[in-house]
């Protein structure tokens, strides 16, 4: 991983590429890489769809090494949705493959002069960039079938669907899983629109002939990986619950906790939760010949993904994640698993952020555009997004724009990005993360749910304001560091609770790179990344007024707990004072 591929999409005469050494970006990976490049090279006042914005795609520090869980890819830019810095993170195969091909980053820059659409092919022999307008408006699933026919069975793809080509603010960047389904997404913040603005439809990666990246101390690396894997399988969350039920195990938990946002964040419990729970999906999937245990990338030992077949046993979609089941399900009053799986498939193939899309539809239901709970109407709305009808373009611009167009007062967004599946009043700690993260309303950025609800890494009462800022701060710092390693964030359950598993992660990094990192080094890395991101946002015009929740969370209590968001502004503003 010693080189960067830079492609100037706007060069005279067509895209021009350059392979260069890492230079000042040496030692960085994943989110540290993408945020460093964006902060250094992107003028904060640029238009996100213009030639000055850059799309940075980076595997993590341990991607491609053979370390378990190391398949996460970071995609960064100035976000068309938030107007601030963005890192969206995805599983799938591309991170491993790109790392083994030797690239620490791909940087797409400039803006194409015509309206040609390009594919980028990267293999052991080099890079080819070719125009292929026959790919225009192909859905992600159809596109990958075509790429396999042209480039063989061993490829991994990074692509945009029609939503990205149409430069929608909710457009995602898709990554293929080990079976080449484009079902993993760098979803949040419209990164797909930036790829579309740069005229790139797909990056095809083939690492045939490449080996795993060699560690400095192979023996120590192998030992560390063994302990790491053993720790993951020993922990009940990573070893049992996630492979058995997937992330959607959370539906019943958040519902019982009274924190499941229902009726557009009006109440905290959904009467239909049991019909769309992780337990129900797991049983249904198994009955229909697929199941809830599947790895989204090779090297994953947790296997929290799954496969959902329709009632005839035919593939319908990947197992919908908790966020999809909430955004398209509970948030919209929909309690039909088949409808939710169809919506998940449509998000994947059109290339849409499942959270932003579901929340936008729920806001549209609030406005009476379609009836609350009408699953077929929701499916039809997503199809309109895929076709780019005027209504589709409104919804495809995300929840905030949808709310403005239809005159909705209560729209659950921060920095323009839709809130995920946890009510910030019933889980005060996630409210702090939503408000303060440089990413906008983002649950993974500082997953307070772990400690507020799941009693992982200790316990902080979710219904009180005390302790929430410190909790969110520590998690935001740790997450920024983990996001730079290429590791799946779900290792956090094991490394937070088991000191030997945490140590084995340090040992993986140290034995691979010949370093002597400690827990403090991890903290320093996380703080450095957050500081870079906060600084970019400040230069882009963000102030502390942007680190607040929408007004109604302060005035409207949520049942059953009858509670408002209680953390004071001054406390939020102290989060980054370290």
């Amino acid at each position, binding site marked *: 991983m010693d080189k960067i591929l830079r492609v100037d999409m706007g060069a005279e005469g067509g895209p021009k590429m350059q392979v260069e050494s890492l230079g000042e970006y040496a030692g960085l990976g994943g989110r540290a890489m993408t945020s460093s490049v964006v902060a250094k090279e992107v003028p904060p006042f640029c238009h996100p769809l213009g030639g000055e914005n850059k799309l940075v795609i980076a595997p993590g520090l341990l991607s491609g090494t053979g370390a378990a869980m190391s398949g996460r890819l970071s995609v960064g830019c100035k976000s068309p949705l938030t107007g601030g810095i963005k890192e969206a993170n995805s599983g799938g195969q591309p991170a491993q493959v790109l790392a083994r091909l030797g690239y620490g980053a791909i940087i797409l820059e400039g803006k194409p002069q015509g309206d040609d659409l390009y594919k980028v092919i990267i293999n052991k022999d080099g890079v080819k960039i070719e125009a292929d307008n026959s790919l225009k408006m192909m859905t992600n699933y159809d596109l990958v079938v075509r790429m396999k026919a042209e480039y063989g069975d061993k490829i991994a793809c990074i692509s945009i669907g029609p939503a990205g080509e149409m430069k929608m603010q909710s457009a995602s960047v898709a990554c293929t899983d080990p079976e080449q389904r484009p079902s993993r997404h760098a979803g949040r913040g419209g990164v797909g629109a930036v790829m579309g603005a740069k005229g790139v439809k797909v990056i095809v990666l083939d690492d045939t002939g490449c080996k795993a990246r060699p560690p400095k101390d192979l023996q120590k690396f192998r030992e560390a990986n063994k302990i790491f894997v053993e720790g993951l399988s020993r*922990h*009940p*969350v*990573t070893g*049992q*619950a*996630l492979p*058995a*039920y*997937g*992330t*959607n*195990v*959370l539906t*019943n*938990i958040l519902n*019982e*906790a*009274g924190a499941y946002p229902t009726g557009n964040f009006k109440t*905290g*419990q959904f009467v239909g939760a049991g019909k769309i729970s*992780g*337990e129900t999906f797991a049983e249904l999937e198994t009955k229909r010949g697929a199941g809830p245990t599947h790895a989204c990338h090779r090297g994953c030992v947790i296997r*929290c993904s799954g496969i959902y077949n329709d009632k005839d046993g035919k593939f319908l979609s990947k197992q919908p*994640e*908790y*966020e999809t089941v909430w955004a398209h399900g509970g948030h919209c009053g929909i309690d039909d698993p088949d409808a939710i799986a169809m919506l998940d498939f449509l998000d994947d193939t059109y290339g849409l952020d499942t959270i932003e899309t579901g929340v936008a539809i729920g806001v549209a239901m609030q406005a009476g555009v379609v009836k609350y709970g009408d699953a077929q109407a929701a499916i039809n709305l997503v199809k309109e997004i895929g076709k780019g009808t005027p209504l589709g373009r409104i919804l495809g611009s995300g929840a905030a724009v949808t709310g403005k167009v239809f005159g909705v007062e209560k729209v659950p967004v921060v920095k323009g990005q839709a809130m995920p599946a946890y009510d910030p009043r019933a889980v005060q700690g996630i409210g702090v993360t939503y408000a303060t993260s440089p990413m906008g309303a983002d*649950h*993974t950025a500082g*997953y307070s*749910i*772990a400690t507020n*609800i*799941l*009693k*992982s890494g200790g*316990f902080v*009462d*979710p*219904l009180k304001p005390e302790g929430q800022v410190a909790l969110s701060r520590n998690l935001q710092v740790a997450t920024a560091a983990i996001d730079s390693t290429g590791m799946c*964030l*779900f290792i956090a*359950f094991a490394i937070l609770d088991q000191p030997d598993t945490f140590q084995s992660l340090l040992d993986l990094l140290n034995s691979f790179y010949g370093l002597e990192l400690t827990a403090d080094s991890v903290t320093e890395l996380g703080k450095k990344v957050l500081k870079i991101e906060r600084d970019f946002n400040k230069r882009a015009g963000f102030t502390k007024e942007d680190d607040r929740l929408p007004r109604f969370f302060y005035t409207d209590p949520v049942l*059953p*707990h009858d509670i408002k968001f209680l953390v004071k502004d001054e406390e939020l503003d102290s989060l980054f004072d370290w």
Partner: protein
Amino acid sequence: MKVTVKLFASLRKDRFAVDDFDYQEGTTVGHILASLNIPEEEAAIIFINARHGEPDSPLKEGDLLAIFPPVGGG
């Protein structure tokens, strides 16, 4: 006193999803776990009327007790 007990995920195996029980006054969560043969380590997340509880938390008439094994997600 009547208490509704809800079990989730792997705790449902060979038990139930939801059922009503009649317990003596002063019954704690721990007593109920023992009566259902659920080891305390497996009852990682306990809600009494949507608020976090502990094995030593007492129940009262009409309470809703929800018990989860160690789970996570995102």
